[in-house]
């Protein structure tokens, strides 16, 4: 079972490892090549045009502003239909509720559809501790579960595995002759997982989006594994982040279309299922119990902070991963938690601690590609900046102390210099002399600064002080122009 730990402190180390991995780099650039461009094109082809993303943003903002009303309505409708709803403030409560069901029903085997929120709350290890075998059934998730790893992409979790590695895994775990042929590998997994589906006592899924008005949750998949997991076992437990809801079906329709385009450049996923409750009298399949677990786990803190409320509009389509230059080079594992890429760089610090996740938001480039790709038009760069501001200035609400003395002192010094022209000029002159001691590139840039500034030049060069300062050059040229 893949234990989910928070490893955000190891960002730099893991990022380095990702960059050094040629297989990962190739896989990621292939993914970004296909999906990154395809998504932009898919938005353009929308009948309403790419502006539908702004409409969707407004729908999501409205839903978030009325979250209490929408969740009450959803819960009431599901209960009327014979389902149960549990509201969990923390990961522990959510996991404990599910473990309680497993214990009551004597569940031995659970089949699970891909769900990021269950990664976030570390459901699998908790159920394993209760003696429940949890089988991931999305092919990509199944592969990494066999390998004992964690997902490296929200939609393509096994993007970092080659067919050769998968061939070895399947030969070892499924007892099949070694093959690197994707159709044959897929078929081997199909056969093995079909047995699990038919034998399982519990099906576990996430929720892509709920509709409050009708009282349904919905799931989207291409493989059909979620349909299996929500149809065959006697109990279905669905987990949703509390923000994954809209008020009405017509609003749902817009979000779903953008979700499918953002996630995988499709007009629609192969299977979209709307689940409103358990099996009804007379029906021969479907679970006899349906439970929905609505998870807060730190989301209400984001909701309460106007700087970060916008992040709750996110539907985890992962379009931002497919365009991010940083994600494209370091891969998903560096982000050290369930969520990777730009969405991870904002959500993970907010959910698990800003100080702990500082490298995630410092690592992004602020290039803005994520905002352009976001199916919900979320301003991720703005929130990355807000996080950086909190890291520098501190924020008692988020438990962050102002950053250490050195950087602060350096900027103070800088402030003092630039606001005194005479002093500034003298400092420049001194710099022009001192920089002669420093190693240069062929183009004349400074290759290495002395400590404590050496970090800056670790991966880039520094421009030297000009032989003739701009202010002097400017004055001279104006004089020439006046004469001429």
């Amino acid at each position: 079972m893949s234990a989910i730990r928070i490893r955000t402190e190891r960002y730099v180390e893991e990022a380095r490892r990702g960059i050094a991995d040629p297989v990962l780099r190739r896989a990621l650039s292939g993914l970004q090549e296909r999906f990154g461009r395809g998504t932009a094109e898919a938005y353009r082809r929308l009948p309403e045009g790419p502006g539908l993303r702004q409409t969707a943003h407004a729908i999501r903002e409205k839903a978030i502003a009325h979250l209490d009303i929408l969740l009450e309505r959803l819960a009431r409708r599901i209960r009327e239909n014979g389902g149960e709803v549990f509201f969990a403030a923390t990961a522990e409560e959510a996991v404990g509720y599910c473990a309680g069901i497993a214990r009551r029903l004597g569940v031995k085997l659970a089949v699970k559809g891909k769900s990021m929120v269950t990664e976030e709350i570390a459901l699998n290890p908790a159920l394993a501790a209760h003696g429940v075998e949890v089988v991931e059934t999305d092919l990509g998730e199944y592969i990494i579960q066999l390998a004992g790893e964690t997902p490296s992409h929200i939609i393509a979790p096994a993007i970092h595995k080659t067919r050769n590695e998968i061939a070895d895994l399947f030969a070892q775990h499924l007892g099949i002759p070694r093959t690197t042929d994707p159709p044959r590998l897929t078929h081997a997994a199909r056969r093995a997982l079909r047995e699990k589906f038919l034998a399982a006592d519990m099906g576990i899924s996430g929720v892509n989006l709920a509709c409050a008005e009708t009282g349904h949750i919905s799931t989207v998949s291409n493989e059909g594994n979620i349909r299996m997991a929500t149809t065959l076992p006697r109990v279905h437990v669905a987990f949703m982040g509390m923000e994954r809801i809209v008020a009405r079906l017509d609003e749902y329709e817009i979000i779903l279309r953008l979700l499918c385009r953002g996630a995988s450049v499709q007009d629609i996923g192969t299977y979209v299922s709307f689940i409103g409750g358990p099996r009804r009298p007379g029906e021969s399949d479907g679970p006899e119990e349906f439970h929905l677990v609505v998870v807060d786990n730190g989301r209400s803190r984001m909701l309460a902070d106007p700087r970060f409320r916008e992040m709750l509009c996110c539907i985890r389509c992962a379009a931002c991963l497919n365009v991010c230059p940083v994600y494209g080079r370091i891969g998903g594992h560096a982000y050290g938690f369930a969520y990777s890429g730009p969405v991870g760089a904002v959500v993970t610090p907010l959910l698990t601690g800003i100080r702990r996740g500082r490298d995630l938001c410092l690592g992004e480039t602020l290039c803005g590609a994520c905002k352009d790709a976001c199916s919900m038009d979320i301003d991720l760069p703005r929130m990355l900046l807000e996080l950086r501001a909190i890291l520098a200035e501190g924020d008692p609400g988020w438990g962050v102390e102002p950053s250490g003395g050195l950087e602060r002192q350096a900027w103070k010094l800088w402030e003092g210099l630039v606001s005194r022209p005479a002093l500034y000029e003298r400092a420049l002159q001194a710099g022009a002399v001192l920089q002669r001691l420093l190693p240069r590139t062929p183009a004349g840039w400074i290759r290495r600064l002395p400590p404590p500034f050496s970090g800056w030049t670790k991966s880039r060069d520094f421009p030297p002080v000009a032989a003739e300062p701009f202010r002097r050059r400017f004055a001279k040229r104006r004089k020439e122009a006046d004469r001429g």
Partner: protein
Amino acid sequence: MAEHREETLFFQTLRRALGHPPNAARPAGDLFPAEPSAEERRLLALVSGRSEQEREEFVSRLAAAARPLHLEVQALEDLAAARDAVLRLVAEKSPEWGGEKQLVAWSHPLIESLGLAEPLARQGIPLHLTRPVDSALDAAAADEERRRQRSRIAASFIGITAADFCLAETATVVLRNRPGEPRSVALLPSIHVALVPRSRILADMKELFALLRWEERFRTEGLSNYLSFISGPSKTADIEATMVHGAHGPREMVVFLVPG
């Protein structure tokens, strides 16, 4: 009850985060309108006033959308042609998991009117109809009946359903859940055959949702407890981004458009 305490706290936190008094449930206001919007009225009029010719255009749109999804669409003259098309599939395809050929179909008037039972019986091929579970049965007997039905569905290589709607834009078959119409018929067999009456082809999801929200005939049942959109056979691209059909659900899917 412990659950209630947690729920109360959850909503208190939520309302506080939203800047509202923590203990007062807020009114829904106009979040859930009781009347269709102007746009929805337009859609409803569009659907109800649709001509035969416009519907015919949908057939080609549907076929075009289906092609890249590996979804086969056959427009059939009448029920006899649909029956023959099913029998052809039975003859041409072989069971994926071994064993003898068996079919499963919903106990649905449209499917039963195909008259498949007799020609299949002549070939010695079992056709299972998924009857609703009798409410007079006690719990153990009902469980037994469900188990029996499931093992028949799992043993069948072709599953036949009748769609509530079909969306031309995305080549989507829409199934609602009812007794006698188990969803696993469209899931466990290797080949899913969906019958679609031509009058049930809509342009897109917008039209469907307008009907399900406001049209009296469809509104009562609403989305049912399990509404499915199925757009083609099951697929995955999780191994080095290579597309493979038949991940967990059916590896082939056929839509038969029939009159009605």
